[in-house]
Structure formats: structure tokens, C-alpha cells
């Protein structure tokens, strides 16, 4: 499975756009990029998934350059409730995570201030 690297923590303010970048240099041809959000004492929640270029849903946008070695999760106009841990994961529908489950890593602790 491709290893991912993302910042340990980020701070921002309400109303700002937040971009969290994830590096995945060893991404395989069949791999998708998926982002999850986790609040304290809850399970991670699927946010968005993409393969290449740009994907947008009601929650976020995901930007993936042509070489797919990185991806950026964009959260528009964040609020205090967006304070959470964000995980970037890479894998295909069979690795979903692989033979043995996705590796979540440490994620990015996003703190939104008033």
C-alpha cells in the first residue's frame, strides 16, 4: 500500500478556506485517494474520494495533479465544527485497504478558531 505523508496539525479561522496537502509518491495505477474526517470519540467519516483531476461534493473539493503523487483536500469557509482529524488514504477497491485494511496514519489535526 502506498504510504502517505500529511502535516501533523494546522490552524485556521472561521470563514477561511483550508487546504490540507497529502503526499503519496508511491501511488499505484489502480489506487484511489480517499479522505476521512474524525471527531473525538467517533469513528472516521468518509469525506471525498478521487482518482485524478478535481472532485467536488457538498462538503469539500479534492485536487489531484496529473502525476497523482499528491492531493489537496480543500474545505471552503470552515467553521468551528470542522475542527477534527483528517486522514488521507490511498488504495484500490480490492485493497480497500488491501488484504488487511487501510492504514490511517496519524492524520492532520485541524483546529479552527473563532
Amino acid at each position: 500500500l502506498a504510504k502517505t505523508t500529511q502535516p501533523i496539525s494546522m490552524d485556521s479561522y472561521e470563514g477561511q478556506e483550508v487546504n490540507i496537502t497529502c503526499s503519496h509518491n508511491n501511488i499505484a495505477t489502480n489506487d484511489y485517494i480517499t479522505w476521512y474526517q474524525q471527531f473525538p470519540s467517533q469513528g472516521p467519516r468518509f469525506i471525498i474520494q478521487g482518482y485524478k483531476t478535481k472532485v467536488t461534493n457538498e462538503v469539500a473539493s479534492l485536487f489531484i495533479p496529473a502525476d497523482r503523487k499528491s492531493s489537496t483536500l480543500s474545505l471552503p469557509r470552515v467553521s468551528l465544527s470542522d475542527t477534527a482529524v483528517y486522514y488521507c488514504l490511498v488504495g484500490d477497491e480490492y485493497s480497500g485497504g488491501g488484504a488487511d485494511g487501510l492504514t490511517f496514519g496519524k492524520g492532520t489535526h485541524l483546529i479552527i478558531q473563532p
Partner: protein
Amino acid sequence: EADIYQTPRYLVIGTGKKITLECSQTMGHDKMYWYQQDPGMELHLIHYSYGVNSTEKGDLSSESTVSRIRTEHFPLTLESARPSHTSQYLCASSEYGGSNNYGYTFGSGTRLTVV
């Protein structure tokens, strides 16, 4: 509306007791997983299953055991609880292959405290 259910939500139990954490999903997913997570720390995979009668150990060694007799049910059992088992246990499920959206669905977790 949750499609994967974990019970109990919180559990405080004495050392040496046997406990079973329940996990059920209504999505017909073949793959199910158990993760263990301490506060502020990473999720660690402890068990997974490809389907009925399939169980495998994950990356993190665990003294717990699991069973998969029905597709929708994936309980986790600790035969003799110890304080070192205190943690949050998260159950998840996913489709296996054939879909562009292979995302995991997680339950709300069971916060276990062994005293």
C-alpha cells in the same frame, strides 16, 4: 442514519471479566474490520474479515478474538479483560471490489475501560 451499529457505546468492566463488543451492519458489505484507537492516537487494525467464516489478524497484535457467522455481524470478544485493554474499539465495513467508491463506513465506537 447509521448503517453500522456498535454496542455498547461505553463499557466499564472489572479485570478478568469476559466481554463481547457487538458490531452489525445493514449494508450487505462483505469486508468488516476492527480497529483499536487510544485517545489522540492512530487507528490500528486488529482484525478483519472478507466474509462469512473468514477472520484474519490485523497489524496490531491483540488478545481479542472475532467471529463472522453472519454477513452482517462481526463481534469482538475479550476472554479476560485487563487494564491494558482500555481503549476505543471501532468497527467498520466496506464493499469488496467492483466499485469506485470503496470507502469505509465506521460505527460510533465502543469506549472500553477496564478497572
